[in-house]
């Protein structure tokens, strides 16, 4: 009966794979999952631009490669603009059906690559920029980035980070680009839907994908999906879309799950005190109310 139900299900995730098995990501890596889903959504005619970071490792070391699509490995802070360069050539060669996918981590996006990303967004360059967000410099050994949440331990915040995570989505929204979305490996259908929507839109498209990291967040690798779902259910990582910087759409109602469920599973929050927890809760609440207001539903 169970098998029968599976067979009848119209599984919307495309079957074709664009990452070979045996890649070099850590067990339970959220980034590898995100790459796999995103490439399934975009298909073969995609050129990817990857800076140093976890994705750079996952894609393999020469002469081996995990990738079935062309990839340009670029300098850390140039992901967006290198993608713009790739697009410029494709435009001159009239290859309009090729997707250009810039794929940077939170360090490459929130921190060192923000200037080039802002430049590309201001010019509305025709690229899809995905930021895979694992909330720290994981590949170099768990150093804090401006995406690291308040209260989290990293190797450069030996106690815990004492300022909140930068709101990159609002920064991108201020550029009034055609399409922005947050997505999560906890919700693959939603993620694929958003990548496909980005594919069918032109101009600068920005997608922030939540990619939990067992290595850096100090949780057991089999909990990655649970961690991703909990982040959305507790409201700390809401899933939403913004069109032209103005039209907001919340994709998932926030359940009443307490933030502690998410926090307590992760070793990185071990030094978070009650005061810090209340501050985060307050911010999550305010952000949620802000998003509701922006959708016009309040």
């Amino acid at each position, binding site marked *: 009966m169970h098998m029968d139900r599976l067979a009848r299900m119209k599984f919307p995730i495309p079957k074709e794979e664009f990452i070979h098995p045996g890649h070099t990501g850590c067990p339970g890596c959220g980034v590898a999952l995100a790459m796999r889903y995103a490439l399934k959504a975009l298909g073969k005619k995609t050129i990817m*631009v990857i800076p140093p970071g976890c994705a750079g490792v996952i894609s393999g070391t020469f002469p081996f490669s995990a990738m*079935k*699509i062309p990839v340009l490995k*670029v300098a850390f*802070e140039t992901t967006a*603009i290198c993608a*713009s360069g790739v697009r*410029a050539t494709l435009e*001159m060669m009239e290859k309009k059906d090729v997707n250009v996918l810039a794929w940077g981590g939170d360090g490459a996006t929130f921190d060192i690559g923000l*200037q080039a990303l802002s430049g590309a967004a201001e010019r509305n360059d025709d690229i899809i920029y995905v930021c895979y967000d694992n909330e720290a410099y994981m590949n170099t050994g768990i150093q804090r980035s401006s995406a690291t949440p308040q209260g989290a331990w990293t190797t450069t915040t030996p106690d815990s980070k004492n300022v909140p995570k930068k709101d990159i989505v609002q920064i991108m929204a201020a550029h009034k680009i055609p399409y922005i979305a947050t997505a999560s490996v906890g919700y693959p259908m939603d993620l694929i839907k958003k990548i496909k929507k980005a594919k069918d839109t032109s101009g600068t498209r920005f997608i922030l994908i939540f990619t939990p990291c067992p290595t850096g967040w100090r949780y057991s690798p089999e909990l990655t999906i649970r961690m991703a779902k909990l982040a959305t259910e507790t409201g700390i990582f809401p899933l939403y879309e913004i069109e032209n910087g103005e039209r907001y759409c919340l994709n998932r109602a926030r359940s009443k799950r307490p933030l502690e469920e998410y926090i307590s599973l992760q070793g990185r929050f071990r030094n978070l005190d009650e005061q810090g927890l209340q501050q985060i809760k307050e911010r999550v609440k305010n952000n949620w109310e802000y998003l509701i207001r922006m959708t016009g539903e309040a």
Partner: protein
Amino acid sequence: MKNVISSNQAVSYAVVSAKPQVIAAYPITPQSSVIEMIANFCDRGDLLAKFIPVESEHSAMAACIGASATGARVFTATSSQGLALMHELLHYASGLRLPIVMANVNRALAAPFNIKADLSDSLSQRDTGWIQFYCETGQEVFDTIIQAYQIAEQLLLPVMVNYEGFILSHTYEVVDIPKQEQIDSFLPLPPQRHCLDVEDPFVMGQTTDLYINFRYKLYQAMEAAAIVCKNVDTKFQRNFDRGYELIQPYYCDKAEIILVTAGTIAGTCRVVSDRYRKRGLNVGVLRIRLFRPFPKDQICQVLEGVKKVAVIDRDFSPGCGGIIAQEVKSALQGLRAHIPVYEYIIGLGGQDVTDDMIETIITRINNTKESEGCTWIGLLG
């Protein structure tokens, strides 16, 4: 057709003639008018290229890297601080073996702030794997941009064409711009190379333990570059009745002293050379046009047998002295006889280099048997 134009204008006309498909640039004095003109050419349709007005020089080079990796002929121009900001990506461009052509208008590096001519900006990029030319006239600037594309595409190496800020960039001279058909026959469409292509996927610029092998390939390409530059110049001479060689000796046969320099200072040195020859002292001048790869053998051939060599640098490496002087001294190691090399730092930050200053140098050389070390000419106050 003969035009009275500045070297900046010569660059923009050369770019139109070379027909790159993607141009990314950021304005900086004294380069700005290059990209203003190119933006206009693209806007008017005189040049069918995508012009990306980037938010920094770092992004200008990054955009060129992305575009070139996808197969386009590309161009950018910069100067001084902009070139310094690009530094990281200069290594990327040569490491990925991308035939990018860039014009660099030589300008002093801050601090203190100064926007005038000084070769330290590009000479200090000597280890980035770029072929480097230093020009003396507007015509040479135009012609070298055209040559640069052919050299870059043959070797899969990036080429930097350097010329001095204001002295060349903003000075109007007669420059002959050949007919487009002549340029097209000299510089056809670029040959196919291995680029990002969805039909032939591969990862470009991957992490690898074979790094040393990739560097060896880059070394080999640079070793071959001097011959390619020479051949391209020879072909250019055949097509356009003018050429520049890799180095330009002037009355160096039987010279007792040879002044070695780069860029526009060479012209002043030639005037002084003529004056001294009339007075009975043979002073030769050797202008170095190609700096990377450094044409050691050709330079040794010219300098062999001369009594004294003076290198006149409009640049300076703190703790070492003139940059060209270091290169010349290193090249002369290949010769049996010891030739004293006198080192002069001159004209930094666009200070005028006058014939009197060159005469001062020659007097000093005449009065001393061995080099006095790094000597500064033209200090004020």
